[in-house]
């Protein structure tokens, strides 16, 4: 919403400065977006008097002018045909920037004659396209030195506010003035153009309302014998200042009241209307060329203003070209109506029309403004265009708007912490147009017709406090609930930061990627079902909720590789989606690594990443997140996007805590990654919650005083025997004495028969109470060999 300070002052008697006004507007909830004074760019240009304009001795088309300026007499060489002795012109001095030419003026010599500054045209000041000659102010004869902006009435700052959707009343300058007056920044003047224009005949055009609630009331006025043409300069200047293009007096008048009073109006060329006006719903397929020159198709939900033949306007949105006013219009029919906000918004959206009328109707136009709007229009039209007005045509009645709410002044202090006394609350509300009634039941406050946004006591409190000032709200610390704060996170919630920090600690970089991805990619990672498809995606690349974070990370890997990052690792802790229900979202800690384990190094060669890097990531994340990793089992099973022979899952019983492994070569081919890549996915929500009872106490540490004994064994086993199975068997051989079994070598090749492998383990015996004798050690070794043989068929390698 744009307006000028001068326009505002037509409604507000005030001594306040521009800055006081804009500050107050912002604090009142009418946030000032920008303030622009066109006079600033015109500041160097002042009125000058041409003492003499004589022919240039060396150029036919140039004149040498002696110019009286505010700074004394100056010689200017001028090429304008209208430069003449005795005229008042606009002088741009040396050093000034001329916006229309983009040139900063310098003293010069033109064909042998000195020239300083210039006499300017309207185009050179970007006021119009007029370049037939320099500006001639002789008619108004302003004093030499007067700022040109002042002469032109351009010394009027333009203020733009960002209007919140509840304040339709402030889509009119009068509403803004009313807020400022209530806040003590002046007095609201009586509204201009509020005399009633007597009607001298009955309108030949009648109005019939046939669209129910869509348009409950319509006031029309027929004005005959008008002379349309350009509107007066003051009106054009105002409209131009707020970015509107003056069209003709009749149209400009409707635009004027749209902004002045948030009262959109429409004028029909009455001679182009066939019979009476019918307000009805659109007919399927009905076409209308609107005033923006485009043709739109109506439907049966849209409210149309029609005559007996055709639809002539989209009610509350835009008029139609066929019945629009032109220079030739002599008889007009003025429409001042009320259109339902919800329907207007819906129609506007469907048609894709953003108009000043729609902006106001969808926010709610004052239902009491129909008659006064029609009067104001009639008054201004007859004043500017002549003519004779009919008696008003009034169809329907105001939509109901009267209501009132109980108001307890103490609620202001209870809700805002500011005590505002009853008298002030009353004064504020009354200044805003509310009515205050006090009775034995308490206070009842009724909002004015232009405030459809007020629905209860809390809204009244807001009116009082915003006018009183938010700066008065005290700064009160939030009382502590306990002297020390409780933890902000539950154990489950704390998994997120713990997993993130563990993974970053392993050298991965944390990514944040979108929750959606292309449907085709989702399908390769177990998703892609329609129930998780975005119905109105912003692009086809973002049309499916992600079933896994890995595809997004792979995408990122591709981008990074294209930027020369041939190796790297990323992780993300965030949601993935199984189904659209409230419980259909899983919190994941997922990551990938690609290329080499690190940069080339003088002491240590990097190697290609493999499934065990991903396994280490998974275990670190799970452990940090509080999973009982020591009790978990590893199985060689993983979803289809992993390499089937190089992937696994980590489980607690049947619950999958994580999957990891090399990514499937087919997936890498799809993403065009010609390097090794591994990934992992931890289901953080699947980690069991530790039991709360028992506190934080650890079990007692028992340190054996005797040195442990280590013995190595190498077994030949079938190639498909898992290292884990063998190690477990060895461990089980003697549960008290054997405390650790670790696999330290895996070998196939020379010396190992085809289809077999050699697994070497180191077994730790912990003597208890007494040192182990050689015989005891022998016996333990035999137990290990027997247990491994039994569980895996492995034999001790010779």
């Amino acid at each position: 919403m744009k307006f000028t300070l001068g326009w505002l002052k037509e409604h507000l008697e005030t001594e306040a400065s521009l800055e006081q006004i804009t500050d107050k507007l912002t604090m009142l909830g009418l946030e000032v977006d920008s303030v622009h004074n066109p006079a600033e760019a015109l500041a160097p240009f002042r009125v000058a008097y041409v003492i003499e304009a004589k022919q240039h001795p060396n150029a036919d088309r140039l004149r040498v002018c002696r110019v009286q300026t505010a700074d004394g007499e100056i010689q200017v060489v001028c090429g304008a045909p209208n430069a003449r002795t005795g005229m008042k012109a606009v002088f741009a001095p040396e050093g000034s920037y001329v916006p229309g030419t983009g040139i900063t003026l310098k003293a010069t010599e033109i064909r042998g004659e000195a020239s300083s500054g210039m006499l300017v045209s309207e185009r050179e000041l970007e006021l119009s396209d007029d370049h037939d000659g320099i500006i001639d102010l002789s008619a108004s004869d302003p004093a030499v030195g007067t700022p040109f902006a002042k002469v032109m009435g351009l010394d009027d700052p333009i203020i733009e506010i960002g209007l919140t959707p509840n304040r339709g009343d402030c889509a009119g300058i009068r509403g803004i003035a009313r807020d400022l007056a209530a806040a003590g920044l002046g007095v609201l003047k009586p509204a201009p153009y509020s005399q009633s224009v007597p009607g001298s005949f009955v309108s030949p055009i009648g109005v019939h309302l046939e669209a129910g609630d869509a348009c409950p009331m319509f006031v029309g006025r027929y004005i005959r014998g008008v002379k349309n043409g350009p509107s007066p300069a003051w009106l054009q200047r105002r409209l131009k200042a707020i970015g509107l293009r003056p069209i003709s007096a009749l149209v400009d008048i409707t635009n004027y009241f749209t902004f002045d009073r948030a009262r959109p109006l429409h004028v029909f060329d009455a001679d182009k209307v066939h019979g009476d006006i019918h307000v009805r719903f659109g007919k399927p397929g009905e076409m209308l060329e609107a005033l923006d020159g485009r043709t739109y198709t109506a439907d049966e939900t849209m409210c149309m203003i029609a005559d007996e033949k055709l639809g002539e306007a989209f009610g509350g949105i835009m008029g139609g070209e066929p019945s629009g006013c032109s220079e030739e219009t002599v008889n007009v029919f003025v429409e001042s109506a009320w259109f339902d906000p919800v329907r207007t918004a819906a129609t506007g959206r469907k048609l894709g029309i953003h108009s000043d009328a729609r902006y106001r109707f969808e926010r709610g136009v004052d239902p009491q403004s129909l008659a006064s709007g029609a009067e104001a229009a009639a008054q201004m039209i007859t004043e500017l265009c002549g003519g004779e007005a009919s008696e008003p045509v009034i169809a329907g009645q105001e939509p109901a708007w009267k209501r009132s709410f109980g108001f307890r002044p103490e609620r202001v202090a209870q809700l805002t912490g500011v005590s505002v006394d009853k008298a002030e609350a009353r004064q504020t509300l009354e200044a805003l147009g509310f009515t205050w009634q006090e009775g034995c039941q308490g206070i009842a406050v009724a909002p004015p017709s232009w405030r459809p946004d007020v629905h209860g006591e809390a809204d009244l409190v807001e009116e009082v406090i915003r006018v009183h000032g938010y700066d008065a709200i005290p700064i009160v610390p939030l009382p502590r609930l306990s002297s020390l704060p409780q933890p902000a996170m539950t154990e489950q919630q704390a998994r997120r930061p713990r997993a993130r920090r563990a993974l970053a600690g392993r050298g991965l970089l944390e990514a944040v990627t979108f929750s959606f991805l292309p449907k085709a990619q989702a399908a390769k990672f177990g998703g892609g079902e329609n129930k998780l498809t975005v119905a109105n995606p912003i692009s086809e690349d973002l049309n499916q909720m992600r079933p896994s974070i890995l595809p997004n990370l792979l995408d990122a890997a591709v981008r990074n590789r294209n930027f020369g990052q041939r190796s790297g690792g990323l992780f993300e802790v965030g949601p993935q989606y199984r189904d659209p229900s409230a419980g259909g979202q899983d919190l994941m800690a997922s990551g990938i690594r690609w290329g080499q384990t690190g940069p080339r190094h003088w002491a240590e060669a990097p190697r290609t990443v493999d499934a065990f890097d991903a396994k280490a990531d998974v275990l670190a994340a799970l452990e940090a997140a509080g999973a009982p990793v020591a009790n978990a089992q590893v199985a060689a099973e993983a979803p289809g996007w992993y390499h089937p022979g190089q992937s696994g899952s980590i489980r607690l019983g049947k619950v999958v805590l994580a999957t990891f492994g090399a990514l499937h070569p087919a997936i890498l081919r799809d993403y065009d990654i010609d390097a090794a890549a591994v990934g992992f996915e931890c289901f953080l929500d699947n980690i069991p919650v530790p039991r709360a009872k028992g506190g934080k106490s650890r079990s007692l540490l028992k340190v054996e005083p005797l040195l442990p004994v280590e013995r190595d064994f190498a077994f030949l086993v079938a190639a498909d025997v898992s290292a884990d199975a063998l190690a477990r068997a060895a461990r089980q051989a003697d549960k008290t004495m054997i405390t650790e079994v670790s696999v330290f070598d895996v070998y196939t090749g020379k010396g190992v028969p085809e289809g077999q492998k050699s697994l070497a383990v180191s077994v730790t015996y912990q003597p208890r109470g007494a040192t182990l004798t050689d015989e005891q050690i022998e016996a333990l070794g035999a137990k290990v060999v027997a247990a491994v043989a039994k569980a895996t068929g492995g034999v001790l390698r010779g």
Partner: protein
Amino acid sequence: MATAIDQLRVDLLSQVAAAASSAALEEVRVSALGRKGAITEQMKTLGQLPPDERRAAGQAFNALKDEVAAALEARKAGLESAELEARLAQERIDVTLPARPQPDGRLHPLMQTWDELVAIFGEMGFVIAEGPDIEDDWHNFTALNIPEEHPARQEMDTFYLQEHDGHRPVLRTHTSPVQIRTMLTQKPPIRIIVPGRTFRSDHDATHSPMFHQVEGLVIDESTHMGHLKGTLIEFCRAFFGIDDLPVRFRNSHFPFTEPSAEVDIGCSRKGGGLTIGAGDDWLEILGSGMVHPKVLEYCGIDSTKYQGWAFGMGIERIAMLKYGIPDLRTMYDSDLRWLRHYGFMPLDVPSMLGGLAR
């Protein structure tokens, strides 16, 4: 005899001095003091001397023996230290070579900011609440007093999933539905913050179709806008680390709060850049207000007994302001170079006591 001893002293001491290595010195020791060494051999001849000479010669031999032993010891120490010197010189390495590569991961500045928010509000007694990203119309709009015809409910602003079993799920447009979920399941007093993902149908330099918000909600019998103001001023100053950061509350409008306030922080735009702090300008960073009585009633909370306030802000926005990140879109690019540059060390855990950020 005396001359022979003197001669032997000179010989042996010069041999000790001449020994160039520990091994050579050992040979000298054996040849001097060994069972068949020169001194030992000479001492064997003592018996042949007359008794009166024997005593004096014996003492002289013992003194020589001690003197040679001391010389050997001194020479040995000298040789060992020289050998160590030589070894150390040989073992010299180029310490300017790079150390072995260590894991060097980084945390995303957005998620670090998330942790900072939790640290600050946690200190003020807020606990985290969470809810699903895929919501229904009721939680996302209706219960927040956003009517059916509100522009926010239209497809141009809000993402919907395809209709399924007669429902058309919505990707939550704000974290506010978690207010509703919390009020429906918990009794006041309530003091929560809700960080999370949010979605809006917008994609340009300053809007992303997915972004993060943090929501705050306090409900009890008497909390008012003064507490809201106190809490948010404390938050803004702690978060940006500026003790005198100007914070301004001004009237605004949201369907779910009444009265509503937008909150600006002080800044300066002098010289083209943006600096947070006392200055001549304001920067809007969050929206807030007293919870609308209708919202309380939707959640089954008696609005004549309880009242409260809520606020919401974009995590990306405050992270960008605090850490000088110029472009929103880079947040989601997963560019390793960007993440290393703007990221945080894994051990930098934000806390009010240990420091929010360095």
